[in-house]
């Protein structure tokens, strides 16, 4: 399935440094040792016919279409499985080969529908192309014999169909599922003529283990596996390379278009983060962008009990600006602020924080990264000197020991999860520290060497115990530490972690992890070769989130696992632009490039560039904004692309705060939960409707390209610019590239970044400047950004959320593969077929004790509130722990989560809430009240005064 001009070389490139010279059809060719004859031919422009070969998969040699003649060799070897050799002479085209190929094609076509003209792959079918290339003109066997033409079609998957009548059993789909995705959901069932592709045990795709990553569809050379959107609309006619707007992997995609309609999103094989792979969200779940719920006309209202009134852009911006100015006049300069979004581009985020700092005249700007990875920023900046991960994704290919803490890559970062699984299948060792049995712990051909199944809230105890083993068993890399780190802080840290109270034996009681497992894991990480740590929100979203990040950095420094390929500290960022939104100065205490607002020199730089006086004091963080709203000192908020009324913890407190405010401006695609409390709604633009850049978890700045006209008429950065002008701070950018140019001028890490360079290189990993003109795949290679690595003490402080008689279970939250964050996008796609509601996972033992059966309604009560969900009995959670997701607003997962937060950053403690669970028969009071409120708001939207009525 290839509808682009990229060459498919048939087999993967060899990375060998040794070169081999051979002759193919009389041409001298020099390629790396290990290259297949097929690829060597392709690289010199000679195309050998093929069906089962594609360059994303290892050679298989089943179709026999690619056979060649090699001087001195017997028979007709398959060029895909034959490696080149020095002096080899290859012939790819002669009469004999042509006859054999025609014969093979004839066999294929004798059992293949002859409906090419009406086939969905017409014009994009490798079988069609190959049969044409070999010159098949007749099928001597006829079409009457036994065949598969009546095989039943499987349309169970919402996004693609499986038509076995068109299958040539080339096994590309099976191999893609194994090699690329690592799920092993597909197999070839039967032998000989009975061979057929089988999802799991001859099940329908939807009932099988298939995760709908699309790798099989992409690999299929015929219309057997085909996107339903292509079946419905026909083949696309042009494509644009852009970047996915879901998770922090930041996959590169070809948006394949018919005019302004996206027909399909196909992962870009040149994508430097994803190398041609995708997941069910990026590949298929783009329909939200044109969903009927999109609001494309600005709206205003004085009170949230009023009906919305559609107005022009000019009126809406003027209304919003006047409100903000009035609030500042009445309540003071610091009474308003803004929230940037990790779903928006770098340029948009930069502009929002600039509007707040320069236009509003205060530093009350924060980002949704506050509630996910702000502890990463604090922890890594404090220890290494830079608030970012240290590696690129490809680094995992050289890891020998992978330590995954509080992350679920196969669900949260699935494309990277597949890369990691590939490395694990190659033999890397795996340590998983997680309260739940995530898929990585045991999946096909992957099994964790250690699963440290700790109690929620005890990360610091575990990490410090690991450090204790490393120090007391002399496993530290003293040479690395003495050369690269602050030895005084190391000595202090050694003394601290060596204390008996930090030993695995002492911490086993706290963590619930046996001491010998902690010792074994520590030894493996410290001595097993290249040790790499990957972590996620299961680390950061704790009252000691920053402490765990520091502890992780300590481990990496102590073992010398930093500064080269295969090692490092890798925060897996949740949303597409978490790294970018943090880089762009979204936090209230620092300018773009992580420079504190109190730094006189930095402030002078920005004051000179922005031509305005700037405040030297940090502004309010998001939770502080809510508190200030309730005490009456914070009254106005501009929110771009963020749904705080669903995503933030202790949601009743958040809703109360929002109700106290006098002007909430929401810029979004939909009337999200926050917009129900808003006074101004400004239509947002999807990632398909604008230009800009996203920065993924590996600091990779990738292009976002506009493929359709914004439905609301404006790109998001234009709206912010209009608002800035209306409040009296002039902005006059003509294109987002000018914003990036300004960022580059003002930010040392971005000094060498430009749209021209991104266009030329495909993407760039910052720092990119005079010192690193091509970007920086691996940070801290020669020295830490702060000079010497700094060890910090990590005393375990138990969270206030402890199991008690009143609240005997611990709730932890997370997300699943098919849904994304608050679900605003994925709930508006067919991804609901996999997950249509949030459920409470509970261990069978606890369920039995509480008399709870699968799918029963259960009430979950914490000190913050109560909600009701259906139960899902599961051994993935341990006894005493329950788990849920937060993808649906009426689930009220955040009614239960509390105001506990990380000591350093106020990142909420989503991961630990003490709860009481009981079987119930009706929704909670909150759910009923919120349903009423939400219904009223939907009515106020439905009954809105439309623009022409207003006129």
């Amino acid at each position, binding site marked *: 399935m290839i509808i682009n001009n990229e060459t498919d070389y048939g087999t993967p490139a060899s990375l060998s440094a040794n070169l081999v010279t051979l002759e193919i059809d009389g041409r001298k060719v020099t390629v790396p040792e290990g290259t297949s004859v097929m690829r060597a031919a392709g690289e010199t422009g000679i195309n050998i016919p093929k069906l089962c070969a594609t360059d994303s998969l290892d050679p298989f040699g089943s179709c026999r279409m690619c056979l060649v003649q090699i001087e001195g060799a017997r028979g007709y070897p398959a060029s895909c499985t034959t490696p080149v050799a020095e002096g080899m002479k290859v012939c790819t085209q002669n009469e004999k080969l042509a006859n054999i190929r025609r014969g093979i094609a004839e066999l294929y076509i004798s059992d293949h529908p002859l409906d090419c003209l009406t086939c969905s792959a017409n014009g994009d079918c490798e079988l069609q192309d190959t049969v044409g290339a070999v010159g098949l003109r007749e099928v001597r066997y006829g079409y009457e014999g036994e065949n598969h033409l009546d095989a039943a079609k499987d349309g169970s998957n919402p996004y693609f169909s499986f038509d076995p009548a068109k299958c040539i059993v080339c096994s590309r789909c099976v191999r893609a599922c194994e090699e690329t995705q690592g799920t092993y959901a597909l197999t070839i069932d039967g032998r000989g003529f009975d061979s057929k592709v089988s999802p799991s045990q001859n099940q329908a795709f939807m009932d099988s283990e298939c995760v709908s990553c699309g790798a099989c569809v992409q690999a299929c050379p015929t219309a057997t596996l085909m996107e339903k959107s292509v079946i419905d609309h026909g083949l696309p006619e042009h494509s644009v390379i852009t970047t996915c707007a879901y998770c922090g992997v930041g996959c590169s995609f070809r948006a394949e278009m018919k005019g302004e309609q996206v027909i399909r999103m196909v992962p870009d094989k040149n994508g430097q983060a994803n190398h041609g792979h995708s997941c069910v969200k990026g590949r298929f779940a783009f329909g939200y962008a044109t969903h009927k719920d999109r609001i494309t006309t600005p709206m205003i209202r004085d009170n949230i009990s009023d009906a919305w009134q559609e107005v022009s852009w000019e009126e809406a911006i003027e209304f919003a600006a006047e409100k903000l100015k009035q609030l500042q006049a009445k309540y003071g300069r*610091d009474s308003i602020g803004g929230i940037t979004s990790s779903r928006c581009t770098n340029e948009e985020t930069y502009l929002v924080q600039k509007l707040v700092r320069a236009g509003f005249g205060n*530093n*009350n700007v924060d980002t949704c990264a506050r509630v996910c990875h702000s502890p990463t920023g604090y922890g890594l900046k404090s220890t290494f000197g830079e608030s970012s991960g240290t590696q690129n994704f490809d680094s995992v290919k050289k890891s020998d020991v992978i330590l995954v803490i509080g992350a679920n890559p196969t669900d949260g970062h699935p494309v990277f999860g597949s890369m990691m699984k590939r490395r694990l299948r190659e033999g890397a060792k795996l340590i998983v520290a997680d309260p739940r049995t995530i898929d990585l712990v045991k999946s096909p051909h992957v099994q964790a060497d250690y699963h440290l199944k700790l109690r929620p809230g005890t990360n610091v105890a575990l990490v410090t115990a690991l450090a204790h083993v490393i120090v007391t068993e002399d496993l530290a890399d003293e040479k690395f530490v003495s050369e690269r780190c602050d030895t005084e802080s190391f000595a*202090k840290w050694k003394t*601290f972690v060596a204390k008996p109270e930090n030993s695995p034996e002492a911490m086993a009681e706290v963590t619930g992890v046996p001491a010998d497992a902690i010792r074994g894991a520590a030894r493996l990480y410290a001595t097993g070769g290249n040790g790499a740590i990957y972590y996620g929100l299961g680390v950061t979203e704790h*009252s*000691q989130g*920053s*402490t765990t990040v520091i502890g992780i950095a300590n481990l990496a420094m102590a073992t010398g696992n930093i500064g080269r390929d295969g090692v490092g500290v890798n925060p897996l960022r949740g949303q597409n632009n978490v790294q970018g939104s943090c880089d762009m100065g979204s936090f*209230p*205490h620092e300018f773009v490039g992580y420079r*504190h607002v*109190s730094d006189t020199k930095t402030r002078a730089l920005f004051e000179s560039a922005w031509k305005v006086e700037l405040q030297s*004091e*940090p*502004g*309010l*963080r998001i939770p*502080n904004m809510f*508190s*200030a709203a*309730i*005490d009456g*000192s914070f009254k106005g908020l501009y929110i771009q692309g963020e749904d705080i009324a669903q995503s933030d913890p202790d949601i009743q407190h958040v809703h109360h705060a929002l109700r106290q405010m006098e002007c909430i401006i929401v810029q979004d695609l939909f009337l999200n939960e926050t917009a129900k409390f808003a006074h101004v709604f400004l239509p947002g633009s999807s990632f398909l409707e604008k230009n800009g850049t996203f920065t993924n978890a590996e600091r990779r700045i990738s292009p976002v390209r506009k493929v359709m006209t914004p439905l609301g008429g404006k790109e998001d950065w234009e709206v912010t610019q209009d608002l800035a002008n209306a409040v009296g701070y002039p902005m006059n950018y003509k294109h987002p590239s000018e914003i990036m140019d300004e960022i580059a001028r003002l930010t040392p890490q971005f000094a060498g970044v430009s749209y021209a360079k991104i266009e030329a290189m495909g993407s760039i990993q910052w720092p990119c400047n005079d010192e690193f003109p091509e970007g920086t795949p691996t940070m801290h290679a020669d020295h830490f950004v702060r000079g010497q690595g700094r060890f910090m*003490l*990590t*005393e375990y*402080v138990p969270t206030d959320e402890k199991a008690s008689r009143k609240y005997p279970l611990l709730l932890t939250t997370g997300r699943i593969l098919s849904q994304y964050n608050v679900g605003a996008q994925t709930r508006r796609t067919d991804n609901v077929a996999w997950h249509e509601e949030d459920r409470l996972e509970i261990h069978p033992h606890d369920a039995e004790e509480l008399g709870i059966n699968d799918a029963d309604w259960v009430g979950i009560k914490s000190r913050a509130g109560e909600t009701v969900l259906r139960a899902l009995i599961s051994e993935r959670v341990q006894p005493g722990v329950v788990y849920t997701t937060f993808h649906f607003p009426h689930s009220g997962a955040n009614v239960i989560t509390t*105001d506990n*937060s990380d*000591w*350093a*950053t*106020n990142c909420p403690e989503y991961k630990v809430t003490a709860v009481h669970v009981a079987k119930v028969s009706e929704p909670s009071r909150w759910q009923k009240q919120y349903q009423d409120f939400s219904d009223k708001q939907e009515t106020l939207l439905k009954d809105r005064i439309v623009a022409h009525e207003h006129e």
Partner: protein
Amino acid sequence: MENQNLIKMANNIGAFFNSEPDKAQAVAGIEQHLKSFWEPRMRRQIIDYVQQDGTELMAIVAEAVRNLAAQRSL
């Protein structure tokens, strides 16, 4: 803002720095953290609390807040 909220946040900061064996360094760390990350109205309120009562704060936190007050840096 609610005093209880600020007290809890401040004590959480104190709990991190509490493991620092050099008490002066711990106090300085808390003080710097409050200066770097707390918005002025939050700092003013915690100073008011220390000046009026302060009993619910860890000793090293109260000392850091008193140092802040002495600097008149708000």
